[in-house]
């Protein structure tokens, strides 16, 4: 197992190199000009050109890519063209809100979705199943920003239970921290809940047809024990897979959610950087997200072996 993990970590290096090349090339050919944004509306074309030169954007692709890669190898993600601050510093500033949002969303989603899926499978074909799956379809279909506005409308503006915007660091206390995250986490979690619930249901339905389940039932085992001890464990591999894949959904959804709820996280940093064409920041964030995604997949693979002893690496 350890050898496998080691091999996977080593395999991450070429993956990240390809991602780096891809992101850099994509941004190189993408339209847009940070110099024009920096210069402002009153600047002359000559001023824009001088700023572009000052930023080194007039240099050829290979020269820029070589410089950037060399710095990446030394752990330096570069400097924001706009703020003049190191990309690492910008990312660190924004990491806590986004991680907090993702963790709360993940906990919320798994806590709600897995029992939902189990219940739907257990009551397959009944109104309970149909109701839960209708909810899941709704979760898939309604955009995150709409859910966000509706939640803020009801729970912030009408009921006055939560703030409408902002983020409070965990260091300021658990409840102030959580208070700012509840609504965004529900908004972001809707799609995720729907996805996990559907997969859980499908996987459970398959497992519930197995002979050993019938055996357990015939031996008089309680329904809870059958569902959550025997069936769910055997249905867990696809569920864990989809939770892993869902991290990508969370990252994408965080971009919108953070804008609606004004959370100063990586999602908003991403949008700001894209709109302004702040290339080093975009590249840094994409690399970070790619690394997270690769590592999450590695964790999922390791979890397989714990959930299903038949799986060996």
């Amino acid at each position, binding site marked *: 197992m350890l050898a496998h993990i080691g091999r996977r970590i080593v395999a991450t290096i070429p993956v990240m190199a390809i991602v780096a090349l891809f992101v850099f090339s994509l941004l190189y050919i993408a339209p*847009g*000009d940070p110099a024009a944004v920096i210069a402002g*509306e009153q600047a002359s074309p000559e001023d824009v050109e001088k700023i572009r030169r000052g930023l080194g954007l007039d240099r050829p692709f290979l020269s820029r890519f070589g410089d950037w890669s060399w710095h990446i190898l030394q752990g330096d993600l570069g400097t924001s063209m706009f*703020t003049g601050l190191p990309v690492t510093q910008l990312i660190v500033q924004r990491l806590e809100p986004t991680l907090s949002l993702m963790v709360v969303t993940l906990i919320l989603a798994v806590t709600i979705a897995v029992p939902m899926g189990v219940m739907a499978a257990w009551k397959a074909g009944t109104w309970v199943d149909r109701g839960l799956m209708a909810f899941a379809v709704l979760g898939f279909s309604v955009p995150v920003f709409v859910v966000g506005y509706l939640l803020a409308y009801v729970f*912030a503006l009408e009921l006055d239970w939560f703030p409408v915007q902002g983020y409070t660091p965990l260091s300021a206390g658990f409840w102030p921290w959580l208070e700012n995250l509840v609504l965004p986490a529900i908004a972001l979690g809707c799609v995720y809940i729907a996805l996990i619930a559907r997969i859980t249901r499908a996987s459970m339905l398959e497992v519930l047809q197995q002979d050993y389940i019938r055996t357990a039932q015939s031996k008089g085992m309680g329904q809870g024990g059958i569902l959550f001890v025997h069936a769910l464990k055997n249905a867990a591999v696809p569920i864990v897979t989809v939770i892993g894949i869902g991290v990508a959904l969370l990252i994408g959804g965080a971009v919108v959610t953070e804008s609606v*709820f004004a959370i*100063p996280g990586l999602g908003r940093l991403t949008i700001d950087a894209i709109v302004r064409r702040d290339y080093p920041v975009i590249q840094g964030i994409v690399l970070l997200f790619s690394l997270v995604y690769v590592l999450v997949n590695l964790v999922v693979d390791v979890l397989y072996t714990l959930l299903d002893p038949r799986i060996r690496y």
Partner: protein
Amino acid sequence: MDRRSFLKAFAGVGSLAASGAFPAPALSQGAAAKTLRFVPQANLANFDPIWGTQYVVRNASQLVWDTLYGVDDQLTPQRQMVEGEEVSSDGLTWTFKLRSGLKFHDGEPVLAKDVVASLTRWMARDSMGLMIKALQKELTAVDDRTIKLMLSAPYPKLLFALGKNNTPMAFIMPERIAKTDPFQQITEYIGSGPMKFARSEWVPGAKAVFEKFADYQPRNEPFSWLAGGKKMLIDRIEWIILPDPATAAAALQNGEVDWWETPIPDLVPVLKKNKSIQVDIADPLGNIGSFRMNHMHPPFNNVKVRRAVQMALSQEDYMRAVVGDDTNLWKTIPGFFTPGTPLYTEEGGDALKGKRDIDGAKKLLAEAGYAGQPVTCIVAQDQAPLKAMGEVTAELLKKLGMTVDFVATDWGTVGQRRASKSPPGQGGWGMFHTWHAGADCANPASYIAIRGTGEKAWFGWPDSPEVEKEVAAWFAAKDLGEEKAAVARLNKAAMEHVIYVPTGFYFGYQAWRSNVSGVVKGPLPFFWGVAKA
């Protein structure tokens, strides 16, 4: 339900919510009253007012850096950092004396050498500064408080240039900072203005904080825009970046923020209904919408084609699309200069008055030999006013029988593509929309968009010696009468050449909590004199 209705519905319910019910920051009541939470028009992504000339940077910079002069609400320059000035009888030698006791935020005194370095850097980037630089024979620090500027020819608009509010403003920085290449960003934010920049609290894209500078010495005169005593009545200003207008509206209604610089017109009716909120026009100088054509390439390299568009274009259509049906917020303008300012003129503006002549425009297009060449319209979809104007333009051009190549893109791409002088089919463009702040269009000094200097002109590169002749006449004018005459001729020449087509004049609103006092109308938000109960 469309997005606009949805936003309104969301924000509207805020009026039902109890005021101040949301958790407040961990501040005592007194501290909260001394902290102003302000939602600016855009993210403060960088903080060098010479290197980056976005309005939001200028607006933040006025807190941190001071200027030698500052314009008042009549756009007349008044002394700010200077105690006095002397000018020789031939107008070639200016001597400025700094006020005593001026200090930078790091405790160092403001010296004449700082002024020399700051003006040198500013001159490299500002259109008026470049003109002064071309005339400059000598700019020196005579002693710690005295600066001498010698010119090769008189420049009557010198004090206006040093005190104007248009970007880039002539901010004074410590010499070591001002020596930074004007095309490179500064890395220290030390000024001598009334507020210090709390760099450690800056989270670009989310928050910027300014703290009162205890050693600032405001002038004794009452303040008027950038002139007079900049007395700070609050200790701390937090700029909170809220990119979503509905969120900003809700935050204002619930007392989570105190002042919102640019509420969108759709949400203003909701805010006006809330008794805890004041709403008013933000900038009395407003904005002028622009239909900017590429004078280098067909079809708009032909003045008859440009005139055809001018003849058919309905400013009312544009303004209703951009601002809505609230006619207090917009008006049509048959001219290029800001309505309500001394130089406003309609001379030569008949082409934009009265019923629009589509048939006449079609005939003019035929006369011009227009044969269906595509008009590449680069339209930013991420800027609501530009998107709205672009849609009106597409309809207008189609109505004229023109072939429209509608490129829906974002502002960043427009910024890049409009700089291309290639033909439209090879990465260039035919037209784009933008808007100009009325403060920039009050006179020709900072009105870069009206210049007709050909390849050196602003994007579109109009070439009109007639326009340039009148710009020069304005710079040389000795009194307001001469200025008005020059600008009237300039307006007429620019209309005839169709430098660009104004799509109308419009205002924006600002909104603030009722417990905030001292908010004034101006081309930028002024924080001096603002208090919070």
